[in-house]
């Protein structure tokens, strides 16, 4: 797909202007004199590594944070944005990087949270609210009832609800912080369609993404942030290598630097007939020492469920799991760990980290037993081990006592992986390992995968990022509707081949519409 914008000098009058904005958190200067401008009818992409300050910048515009210095101008007039209500009044709508949905409430109520339509008596008008929500859901092509509690939705659908919520504001400025990180190509295509319509209607859009390919497809201008400073502003048609260089300050030779060790080793993991009613059925595959096996599929295909069952988090109804010829007990995480498995979960913050604990405690958590002698923990050994692994992974931190919450996404992910290195895992299951992680940090994680396989370990990599699966896997398994529908070895694994399998129902009949295929072109 070609950018429609390459030659059109996009945009009209200036809607928004940020001048010399500075913001510090304890120990970090997150923003340092940042400038940005947004015109009506343009898509302005913010680009930068993890921790560059993108989210902090947009939080100034949405009223979540106040700048320490600098000014924000809306329609040329200085604006003080103290709260979400102020932002709303100024016509600014924001989709934050973290979901801001209330699990117990319905889709309709989440969309109109804090702005529910009222009846004459001042009570919430549910009928009106549902009708208006249904309209918005149609617009984002989300096929759920407005009365569904959002707790029942998967992560991609949550993101679409967030988008519907932002659209409901009819804002003049729409800010989207990594909206595509959790979407599949199909939904990305829908989203792009909506953004283009808005651009036509004169809305100014600020768009943050780590997927470089989306920039040319959608953007008009790009502002690159590095270490809290705005480095430069370039047209969106700038080529990817140049963007990477601007963003990370150096060249990255290869985005997917997979180095496969000589010859496949002995089978490490063997799964046969694994089934759990309602989640997945008859899953069988093998992973050999030194291999990276990719597990591709559309969101909701059941990949996460399989990973959790393998690792003993959830039970399964039938089937066998063997690690190194031995079968760890079902539904027992500790048995799976003893057998040599490790799981890097898709929800890094919710399931991977003790956000407020130190990096030392996080890194050594999975080997707490081993560091314990006679009930007492060898804290000195823990410190030594944590220091060694943090150094090996090149974690950017102020020290081992820093809390995990204050690290950037990529460094947080390194901590989770480091935890399993210290625990001695030989087969690592990575579930969406680079979701929301910048190009530079991604490459570091891929290099780590290489190191692991070179040392005789193996990796099962679940990812919705097709180029990543293709670029890093030695073999690709494709799941659809809870079953493995195909296996593609190295050279046969192309985007088209994977997508064709992924959208096919296990019965063999394709049931997805064309937009899925169209969306896959984006990558």
């Amino acid at each position, binding site marked *: 797909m070609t950018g429609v914008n390459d030659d059109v000098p996009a945009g009209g009058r200036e809607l928004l202007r940020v001048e010399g904005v500075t913001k510090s958190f304890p120990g970090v200067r997150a923003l340092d004199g940042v400038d940005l401008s947004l015109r009506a009818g343009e898509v302005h992409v913010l680009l930068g590594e993890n921790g560059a300050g993108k989210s902090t910048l947009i939080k100034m515009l*949405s009223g*979540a944070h106040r700048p320490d210095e600098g000014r924000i101008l809306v329609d040329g007039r200085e604006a003080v944005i103290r*709260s*979400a*209500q102020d932002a*709303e009044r100024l016509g600014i709508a*924001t989709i*934050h990087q*973290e*979901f*801001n*949905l*209330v*699990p*117990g*409430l319905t889709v309709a*109520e989440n969309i109109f*949270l*804090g*702005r*529910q339509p*009222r009846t004459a008596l*001042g*009570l*919430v008008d549910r009928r009106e609210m549902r009708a208006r929500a249904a309209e918005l859901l149609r617009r984002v092509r989300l096929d759920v009832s407005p009365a569904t509690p959002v707790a029942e939705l998967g992560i991609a659908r949550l993101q679409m609800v967030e988008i519907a*919520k932002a659209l409901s504001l009819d804002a003049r400025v729409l800010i989207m912080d990594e909206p595509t990180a959790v979407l599949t190509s199909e939904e990305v295509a829908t989203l792009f369609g909506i953004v283009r319509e808005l651009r036509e209607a004169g809305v100014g859009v600020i768009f943050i993404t780590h997927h470089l390919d989306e920039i040319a497809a959608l953007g008009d201008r790009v502002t690159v942030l590095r270490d809290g400073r705005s480095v430069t502003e370039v047209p969106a048609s700038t080529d990817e290598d140049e963007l990477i260089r601007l963003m990370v300050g150096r060249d990255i030779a290869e985005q997917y630097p997979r180095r496969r060790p000589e010859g496949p080793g002995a089978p490490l993991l063997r799964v046969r007939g694994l089934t759990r009613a309602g989640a997945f059925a008859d899953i069988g595959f093998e992973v050999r020492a030194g291999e990276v096996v990719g597990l591709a599929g559309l969101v909701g295909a059941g990949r996460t469920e399989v990973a959790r069952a393998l690792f003993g988090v959830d039970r399964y109804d039938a089937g066998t799991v063997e690690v190194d010829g031995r079968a760890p007990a079902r539904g027992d995480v500790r048995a799976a760990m003893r057998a040599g498995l490790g799981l890097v979960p898709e929800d890094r913050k919710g399931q991977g980290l003790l956000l407020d604990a130190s990096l030392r405690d996080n890194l050594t958590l999975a080997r707490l037993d081993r560091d314990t002698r006679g009930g007492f923990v060898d804290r000195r050994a823990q410190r030594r081990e944590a220091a060694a692994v943090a150094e090996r992974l090149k974690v950017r931190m102020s020290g081992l006592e820093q809390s995990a919450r204050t690290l950037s996404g990529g460094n947080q992910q390194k901590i989770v992986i480091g935890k399993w290195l210290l625990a001695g895992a030989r087969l690592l299951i990575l579930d969406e390992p680079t979701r929301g992680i910048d190009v530079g940090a991604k490459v570091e994680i891929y290099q780590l995968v290489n190191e692991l396989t070179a040392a005789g370990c193996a990796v099962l990599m679940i990812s919705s990022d097709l180029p990543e699966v293709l670029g890093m896997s030695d073999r690709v398994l494709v799941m659809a509707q809870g079953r493995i529908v195909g296996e593609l070895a190295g050279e046969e694994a192309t985007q088209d081949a994977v997508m064709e399998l992924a959208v096919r129902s296990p019965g063999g009949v394709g049931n997805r519409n064309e937009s899925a295929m169209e969306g896959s072109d984006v990558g």
Partner: protein
Amino acid sequence: MSAEVLAAPGSTPGQWFTRAVLRNGPLGGLIALTVVMAVLSRDFLNGQNLLNVGVQASVTAILAFGVTFVIVSAGIDLSVGSVAALSATVVGWAATSQGLPVVVAVPLGLAVGAVAGLVSGALVAYGRLPAFIATLAMLSVGRGLALVISGGSPIAFPASLGRLGDTLGGWLPVPVLVMVAMGAVAALVLARTYTGRAMFAIGGNEEAARLSGIDVRRRKLVIYALSGLFAAVAGIVLASRLTSAQPQAAVGYELDAIAAVVIGGASLSGGSGKASGTLIGALILAVLRNGLNLLSVSAFWQQVATGLVIALAVLLDTLRRRSAR
């Protein structure tokens, strides 16, 4: 979900019973307990006794409705027993000691309750105190003030207010009516008002609520003030029943109220809760106490039994939810 229909054709009574309990959660628990009591004591299932149970549940239930707001918004209110006593004491003091008319004294008492709640709310919202601590402090302060105002002795309640504790037409107890009315108000607030929906939003995900433009701090003020207001109503009903305001009334009622809310199916981590559930929770506690008295269970064993039933009731509800998955 707790209102699902009891439909189970073609099963034995035992199966039916188990299923009824499991399907209907707190209501099932209440029914089960009622059946057990009716079987054990022939005095239990008669109209007068059931009205007694209603009266005995009323104060706890009214307190618990207010606490429901707080718990739905992921807070907790330990001060309701003290605030109830303080409000009633203020009414008694104003009406009896100061000779103010009842139409002034009662609104004054209600205002005191709301202000006590407001103060707790301000400590939580603006002082960022954990709700447990802010309301624990208010528990102590409220009780102290009630004692100071009354000098430690009960204050007679004006006769006109005593009627609040009486019966209508010789049989329908007014406290039960007040309980039902306050329950209806609580249900309406929770389901249909802006503040009610904000309670669910704040309890479910406070950050999301804030970023969606809900003024979380101001809402918290309203939530705790409502809890204080309900406590004041409960205190006035209690004092009317006794025809005197007791500064030491309602000691420890906060734990009963919280237990009623949780037995009624609300989660202490916020985001869920229903007025109907809370009513059922309060009724379960009242049926239990009434039944144990009817059965002449020894005082000591009554405490043991109460603990067991509280644990059992919530356990059943947890089981039900898990099996519903």
